[in-house]
Structure formats: C-alpha cells, structure tokens
C-alpha cells in the first residue's frame, strides 16, 4: 500500500465537502435574490407562518391559534392533530360532516377539469 493513499482519500473527502459548501453558498445567494419578492408577498399574508400544512386550521398560527381550545397545539408539545405529522388528517370525516354550501354554485367543479375560460 503506498504511503499517500490515506492522505489522498482524506484530500478527496475534503474536496467533496468543500464543493458542497460552495454549492450551499451559491444556493443561499440565489435565494437571497428572492428576498424582495418574499418581503413584498409576506407583508400581505396573514401570519409569519408558512403554508407548509394547510389542512388544519391552527397550522397557519402554529401553537397560538386557539389557546383555550381542547387539543390545540402548545409550544413544545407533540402534535395532537395528525395534520402536523407525516400522516394525512381524516379527510373522509371532513367530507362526511361537510354540509353543502348555501352560497352560489361554482361555474365549474373545482379541481375536476378545465374551466369555462380555458381554451378547449
């Protein structure tokens, strides 16, 4: 076994990690260019919260939406609602309890195809 072999292996690893650090820096710079758009849009949004989990009502204000309600999130507590975890919430239950809207009907069924304005 030649003497420089372990040094070469360590050098290759250092080069690989340096390349990743450069890539990370480039991505940060690229994301930094979006700052103005983020600032303009987030100013119009209701909360500092991200739209990461929109299925449960409390998740746009995690932990703070309903402080006195049963089963609400608390800072540092485990999620009691599965929408905050890897599992989907029981959407079938939502469907079963969802009453038809008394408002005006949609000109197209939402999410089921192109709208009236979409060229055929």
């Amino acid at each position, binding site marked *: 076994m030649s003497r420089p072999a372990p040094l070469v292996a360590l050098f290759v690893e250092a080069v690989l990690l340096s390349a990743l650090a450069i890539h990370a820096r480039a991505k940060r710079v690229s994301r930094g260019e979006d700052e103005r758009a983020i600032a303009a849009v987030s100013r*119009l949004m209701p909360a500092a919260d991200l739209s990461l989990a*929109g299925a449960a009502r409390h998740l746009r204000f995690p932990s703070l939406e309903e402080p006195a309600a049963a089963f609400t999130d608390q800072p540092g507590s485990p999620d009691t609602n599965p929408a905050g975890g890897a599992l989907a919430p029981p959407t079938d239950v939502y469907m079963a309890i969802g009453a038809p809207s008394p408002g005006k009907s949609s000109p197209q069924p939402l999410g089921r195809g192109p709208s009236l304005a979409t060229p055929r």
Partner: protein
Amino acid sequence: MSPRSHLALLSFAWGALGRRRGRAVALLGGLALATTLLAAVLFATAALKGEAERGRATQPDIVVQRLVGGRPGLIDPTDLAFVAQMPGVRRAEPRVWGYVFLASLRANVTVVGRREEPVDLGLVRGALMSGRDARPGERGAAVIGKGLADLLRVREGDVMSLPSAREDAPALTIVGIFDSPVALYTSDVLLVGADDARAILDVPAGRATDIAIDLANPEEATVVTRAILDKEPALRVLDKRILARTYRLTYGRRAGIVLAASLPAILALLILAWDKLGGLGPSERREIAVEKAVGWSTADVLYEKLYESALLGVLGVGAGIALAYAWVFLLGAPLLREVLSGWSVLYPDVALTPSIDPADLLALVAMVLAPFIAVAIVPAWRAAIVDPMSAMRT
C-alpha cells in the same frame, strides 16, 4: 515520534483496513448511514427555520385578535379604535382573512383580503409567475398560489367560485399566479380584494379577522402588549418575536422527535463498532505479534489501531454529511420533510435552501466521531499489550 513515523503508521493502518475489507466496509457504511440520518435532520430543520425567518422582517410587529369563549372571534370597530390610539402604535390596520374548505380538494384554502399596500406585486421580480396583481378595491379578481392553481388546474383568465355562506360572494377571475420563490408563503393562498374576502368569508362590514399593528419602536412590543391586555383582557396580542420563537420550538421539537427515534440506530452502531473493533481475530493477533516481534513498541501498535478507527470515522462521517446534503438539498428531503414540516394537500414545491450553522455541524461531527473513536481506545490498548510469543504460538 516523528511526523514521518506517524505518516508510516497511517499508511499501515490504511493497509490494515484493506486487509479486513469486510469489517471496514460494514463499519464505514454503518457510520455513514447514522451520520446521514442525523445530518439530514439538522440540515432540513435549519433550512425550514431559515425560511420561517426570511419573511419575518416585513411582518407587522404585533397582531391583535379578539377571543370569544377562548376561540378567535371577529374584531369590532371599537377594538380597532382602541388599539389605534395606543401610545407607540404607528399604524393599525384591520385584516380580513380566513379558511375555506374545498371538498373537491379535501383541503383548506387560505383566503386573504388584499391590504392597502402601495406595492404592485407585478413589478416585483419573483413575486408573480404570470398575470398581474389584484388592484386594491378591485372586485372579482384573485391572485392564486401556484400549488393551489396546479391542484385546481386553473390558470390566468379562468373563473372560479368558492363555497360561501353569503349569496353575494363573487365569482373570482384569476388575474395572476404567485411564483415559485414565494410558494412557501402562498401555496394555499387566494389573494382577493378586501370586500370580496368579506363576502366569501362572511365577515360583516366594519369587522375584521385581526388587526396588524406596526409600532414606532418595535422594541416596545412587550410594553404595548401589556398595555393593551391591561385595558382589554378579551384581546389577544401576538408578538412577532413570539411567533418566531414558536417556529423555532416547533421545528426543534419535531427534529428532536426524529433524532430520539434514530437514537437506537446510533446505539446499534456503537455496539457494532465495539464488537468489531474489540474482537481481535486470529489473523489480527498474529499481525500484532509479528509487529511487536520486529520491534514495534506498544505505543506504535496503539497509534496504528487508533489511526484505523480515525480513518474509518473521518471517512464515514464525511460520506454521511455528503449523503445528507444530497438527500435534503438535491433530492428535496423525501420522507424527512413530511415529518418535519407536516403533511399537507397543498404542499409548496420549493427546494430547501442550505442554512447550516457551522457550530451545529461541528457538534454533530463530535457527537458521532468522538464516541466512535472512544470505543476503539480500549480494544486498541488490548491489542497493543498482546504478548508476541503467546500470540504466535496460538
């Protein structure tokens, strides 16, 4: 011992790893996988915290809600007048926003009433992917989040209606679609005129969902909060800094749960390392006996064994960090991201941006590497004190 001797021992350790390739690959792979898991959680958590922090600067300093029976109720005009005259309040603006459940998507959509901001999103690069901004006061126009538009399969110019309790809820014409760089904030959003938002969400005129407050001095947020609550305990005040802390706690807790769940894997690795590094096979005992017979000192053998562990450790940890980086920032952290950021129908499709604290990375390396090398010390010492005569006889 001279640097040249150390280099020679390092080379010898490298050769020894090659001679016991199976054991070396098992340890290297185990260490790399354990590091990958830990580093990926660290990377993804830091990236999500960074994104949550990014939009904070332009948020209102405090947000006031009204509680009715412990649940958020609508803001009265008197509430607005009350907080607007508080000392230190520079601007108090009522906001109308809320959620609409779309049965066809089985998801909640966030309907946001357009605030009277002078900025035109159409002129801000990266804000809109196509179309234009909804003008303040414009009726029947909406800017839609990209995730929502994709899910509904609508585009600029399409007309849609949302379920509403009010007959006068308007049909909405999509005038613009938010761009990908802001998808984390807008994926589930329909930005409409304030009057349209009132009609869709059934918020009576003069009332609001909450009040956004900008302070003359943001450092006074705690004082203003206390002053508001002293005079009107039925209001709830959300400090921007508390929201930021909540986010850090939320992601920190979720990362902690994942790390706690992966602790058995780390312990299994250490046990494997102890077993593999501690058990001297016949060939290894013979090799050490020969080394000592030809003049190696106990210190030489000790160093050589420690170099073996260090080489395995450094290469394994480095490979693990590289794999974790690729998993999170090149592949988008499949499986892990759902656990850390939560499940959603309207999941924003945005690549995570590296936001890694070098101190955290060093702590991670120390956490994995230190015990790995530490468990090798005793076996290395046992190997170093082998009696060459008895070892060669057996």
